[in-house]
Structures are given as structure tokens and as C-alpha cells.
């Protein structure tokens, strides 16, 4: 009895870990994968691969990925998903990937710090410039005449409209 229970426990653990591993794998794959050449930004229609330093991505739980040419377009999509793809739900999003301005590494868009109103422009003009840590964001704000330092929760359609 104890043996079989142990075996069952082992099996569940194996299943659980493999599930965790798989989801972790899909997210890490999103981090390191180069953007496909023909990927187009659903918001502005530009080819994303042309802007390797700026691109951003949304990874859904089913593994589908959508690429954007910059964080601004990502958040336009995120704040108004119905407009761009009514079949997708915001709750199904597994990962928001944006690129840290200084290291150009893909970071978690929900945890990042953003500077708006700076003199650094992205492919679509004014941008939200993402940073992994607050110190970098503050430093950037000083160097590049940033107007505000904000978090993910503060990004609203109204704010995005000011970046047009």
C-alpha cells in the first residue's frame, strides 16, 4: 500500500514538475528566441525584426506569441485587446516581454519600471522606456529629461494617448 501510494505521489510530482518545466520553457524560449522575420506588429503593421533593440512580446498560455515593435504598441494592444483580436483573453496572458533599455535583455513587463516623456524615441516615436530596476530608471530619467517614472499598473489608455 505504502509502495503504491509512493509511486502515485512520485507520478504526480513528475507530472507537476514537467508541467512547471514546460511552462517555464515556453517563457524562457520567448526570452531568447529571435523574432521571426515576417512577424508584424498587430497595432501598427511594421515588421518587428527590424527593431531588435525595441521589440516587445506577449506570450499566451497556449504558447502563441505576438510581437510588437515597441512597448507602446504592446500596451495599446494590452489595454484594448478587443480591438485587435477579440478571440484572445487578457487572463490567458502568461508573460509580457519588454527589453531593458540599458542591457537589452528581455524582462517581465509587469514588474518593469517605465519612463515616459524622455528625449529617446522608439520606432513609433515617443515611447515608454522599460527598466528592470528603479535605480536605472531614475538615472535614465535624469539623463534624458524624462517626465515621469511609472509602474505597469499606471499604464492606461489615457496615458498612451499622450504619447502619440
Amino acid at each position: 500500500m505504502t509502495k503504491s501510494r509512493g509511486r502515485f505521489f512520485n507520478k504526480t510530482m513528475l507530472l507537476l514538475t514537467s508541467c512547471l518545466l514546460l511552462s517555464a520553457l515556453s517563457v524562457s524560449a520567448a526570452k531568447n528566441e529571435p523574432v521571426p522575420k515576417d512577424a508584424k506588429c498587430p497595432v501598427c503593421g511594421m515588421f518587428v525584426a527590424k527593431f531588435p533593440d525595441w521589440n516587445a512580446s506577449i506570450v499566451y498560455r497556449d504558447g502563441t506569441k505576438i510581437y510588437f515593435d515597441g512597448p507602446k504598441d504592446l500596451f495599446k494592444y494590452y489595454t484594448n485587446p478587443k480591438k485587435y483580436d477579440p478571440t484572445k483573453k487578457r487572463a490567458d496572458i502568461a508573460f509580457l516581454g519588454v527589453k531593458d533599455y540599458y542591457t537589452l535583455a528581455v524582462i517581465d513587463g509587469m514588474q518593469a519600471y517605465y519612463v515616459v516623456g524622455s528625449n529617446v524615441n522608439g520606432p513609433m516615436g515617443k515611447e515608454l522606456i522599460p527598466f528592470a530596476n528603479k535605480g536605472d530608471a531614475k538615472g535614465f530619467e535624469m539623463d534624458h529629461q524624462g517626465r515621469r517614472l511609472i509602474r505597469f499598473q499606471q499604464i492606461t489608455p489615457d496615458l498612451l494617448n499622450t504619447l502619440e
Partner: protein
Amino acid sequence: MNRRIERYRNILDFALSSLLRRKGKNLSLLGMYTVIVFFIASLVFFIQALKREAALVLDGAPDLVVQRLVAGRDDPIPVAYGYKISAIRGVSEVKPRFWGYYYDPVTRANFTLVASGDDPPGRESIYLGSGVARLMHLNAGNYLSLRGAKGASQVFSVQKILASNSELVAADLIQIREDDFRTLFDFPAGRATDLAVSVRNKVEVPTVAAKIAHEFPDTRPILKSEMLRTYASVFDWRGGMVIVLLFVAVLSFVILAWDKATGLSAEERKEIGILKSIGWETGDVLILKSFEGMVISLTAYLAGVCLAYLHVFFFSAPFFEQALKGWSVLYPQFKLAPFVDPYLLCVLFFLTVCPYTVSTIVPSWLAATVDPDTAMRS
């Protein structure tokens, strides 16, 4: 449709035989024309290849090089500056570089000694550039003696000969260990020749440079984009010395075309008169003359471009060698990588073939509209 093609074929046939009838004149014209196209095309190919070599060289260059200036002259930079620079936001790496020049009195050549790189040679060993190895007849395993700053000679064993995809860079290179470099040149401790700074985000490079210049007023940051711009302006075919050479070449071509265009010989005029009197239309005469022009200019263009290609890429541009060779003893063995830009070939085509063909038509048209009787009598 078939008759039309037949007609053009006949006119082309007539054009070729009329060219052959005036063999001497046309051959000398073709020769002259080919020489001019050859010269212009060689120049364009050569510049293009040099630009590519420069791009290869600069491909590995750091985003930012920081030099220290004392009274406006380069001076070894304290390595400690590097620690502060690497703390600047956006800087991913700072590498001190050690390099200098060594004059060898025996061969009277200048070598570039470099003591950076990921794979340094062993103690008292060196890597040799292909040019140095050639000049001094050295192979891997041989020994090379260098005279140090304090007068004592130091013997280094040659560990390997460097292969490089750009001979321009590697020709005069000697790679050495950093500590050997210091003892050889009696280089001040804690200093480096310059600092190579890498910045991950290229947008941030000017900001980093401005911060370095502000924090260390005795330094001079040099951007990679500035280096690229300098090379581009030196090698650009529309600028610098090249424009003068190109201008002269194009001018000589214009004189040739002008001469041809204005001078339609009495014999040719008579020929046009006869053709018209036996029933040729003005249009036919024009087609005939433009075919003649096209045959000469296309042949000259193709021959000139092919010869230029051979000249530059197979024989390493011997005609330009004198202009290129300066005071140095050690020369890179130029074997430029073949590279032809279709855009430049088109420019060349429109600069040579088109004006020539057009310039042959105008006088023929003038002659062909004259009454055949007058043309034959004149």
C-alpha cells in the same frame, strides 16, 4: 512581326559591315573608349573594395575608445579610470588596451605591437602577422629578438602566424602578452594605451561619451560612428581625391564623345545621302547610326569593365600601386576580395554608353534630313 525583326537584323548587319569598312578608325576609337571605361571602372571597383576592407576592420572596433590627452597629445590612461567608467549606466564592458609601434632598424619597418585579445600567446612568445613573417622570413617555432626600451634585447618565440580575412589589418601585427609588453616598452604601471568601452544599447553611446568627457576632462572619447564616418568620407567615391580623378576621366570621355558627335566626315555624309537616295528612310538611317554607336560603346563598356575587374581583383591594381605606396617598408599584400556593386555598374553604364549612343544620333539626324542630292554633291 517577323519582317520587322528581319529588318532590324539587316540594318544591324549593314551597321557591322560599315564599321568593318572603316576598320582603322573604329578600332582606334574602340581602344580609346575601352581605356577610359577601364580607368573609371578600375577606380570605382578599387574604392568599393577598399571601403569593404575598412568596414571589415571597423567591424570589430569597440563602440567607444577613451584616450587620455596631456597637452593635446596622447598619453597612457590610468586603468583605474576604467572602474569608474564601467559604473556608468549602459556600459557593459571596459577593456584596457595595450598597443604601440616598434621600429625595427634592420628591416626599417614599423610593426604594430598589440597586447590585448582573448587568446594571448604564452610567456615570451608572440603571434606574427603575415606581413611581418614574410618580411623577416619567420615561421612558427622560430625566434625573434626585439630591443627593449632600456636597451636590452628580448627574445620571443613565434607561436603562430596570424591568418586574417583582411590583410590590411594583420600585415604588420605582432601580438604579445601584456606583461611582456610592459617590460619591453618599460610601460608605466597601472596605465593602458587606451580604454575600449562597450555599450549594449547603441542609442546610449553619445550619452555615455558625454558623461565620460564630463567626468574625466583630460580624456577624449572617440565614437565608432565617428571612425566610420571618417573612413567613409576618405573612401567615398563621390568625395575626396576620388572625385578629382573621376572628374578627369569623365571629362576625357566627354571630349571623346564631343569629337565624335560633332565630326561626321564628308564620306559618312555622302554615304547617308546615297542610302537615302536608294530608298532608305530617315528613321532607318537613325537606327543604323544608333546601332553603330551601340556596338562600339557596348563592346568598349564590357571590355573595359572586365579588364578593370581583372586589374583590380586579380592583379591587385598595379596601376594604382604607386599612388598607394607611401613611405612604409612593410606593405600588406593586397588581394582585395572581389565585390561588385550592381548600382555602380549601372551608374557607369549610364555615364558612358548612353551619352555616346545619343551623341552619334544627333549629327546623323542632321545629315539624314538634308536632301540626298545636296548630301551627295557636297
